[in-house]
């Protein structure tokens, strides 16, 4: 995939399929440490120890439409190709944490790409779970929390076109303030 934000969109689909009610997307960029980390945490069904051991293998999937599950192995490849790696913690009945790290300045690192479009796509596809997106760059923080948005919106659903385009704009402007 061309952008890390596309991997994020894809990895979050795993959390949604696992029935998560709360999903966190935490991105950290530190110029001083030449490090970027992306964490996707959920409270979905989780995976057993045995399954977790082999989940990075592309031939491991519980899907039925094809024999390969590519999401996690592609994300790991994107991290490894720029001197980083992927770590997954998971517990049945509790949830899953996927953490990828990247060498921030590596020329082999895929660009982050359009996080506003990724968040909008996630929220419009599955508006039920709560999403927390926190992006920190060199100490400055941008945050979007759907719990807060739903409090403001009341009965108006999150996936109305006007609301979705507000969300896209809000993220774009918020990240621009962080020079992202």
């Amino acid at each position: 995939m061309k952008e890390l934000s596309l991997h994020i969109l894809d990895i979050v689909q795993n959390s949604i399929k696992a029935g998560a009610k709360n999903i966190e997307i935490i991105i950290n960029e530190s110029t001083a440490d030449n490090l970027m980390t992306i964490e996707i945490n959920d409270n979905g069904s989780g995976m057993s120890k045995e399954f977790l051991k082999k989940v990075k293998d592309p031939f491991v999937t519980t899907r039925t439409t094809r024999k390969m599950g590519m999401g996690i192995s592609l994300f790991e490849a994107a991290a490894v190709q720029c001197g980083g790696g992927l770590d997954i913690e998971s517990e049945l009945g509790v949830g899953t944490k996927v953490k990828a790290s990247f060498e921030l300045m590596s020329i082999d690192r895929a660009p982050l790409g359009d996080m506003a479009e990724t968040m909008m796509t996630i929220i419009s596809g599955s508006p039920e779970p709560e999403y927390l997106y926190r992006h920190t760059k060199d100490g400055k923080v941008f945050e979007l929390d759907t719990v807060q948005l739903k409090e403001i919106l009341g009965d108006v659903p999150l996936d109305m076109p006007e609301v979705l385009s507000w969300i896209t704009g809000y993220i774009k402007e918020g990240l621009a303030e962080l020079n992202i």
Partner: protein
Amino acid sequence: MKSLAELQAIREKMLNQVNLRKDREDGIRVVVGMATCGIAAGARPVLNAFMSEIEKKNLANVTVTQTGCIGMCRLEPIVEVYMPGEEKVTYVKMTEDKVARIVTEHIINQKPVNEFTIGAAE
């Protein structure tokens, strides 16, 4: 600058449109495949192009939803259009620049764009 106050204003405006949800429920559905295969092939910008085209043309009765992998990965991005009372139409190998024609010719003027459909691809 987009603010939370602006979101509050959107809420107030929406609350006055009581038929909104009903319109959306009886309306036209556009379904975009958003599994790994779809995302890798470019489904996200296709979905976004549909959303902005529909917002631009003020088509309140059209909803854009997403689905997982339907087992035809090599034809992704795949978009299905459901018009009430019609058979679904499946568009394959979608790109952003095919979206405007599908919205105008199919969704508004009710004539599917045959050259983009799965029938034409196979």
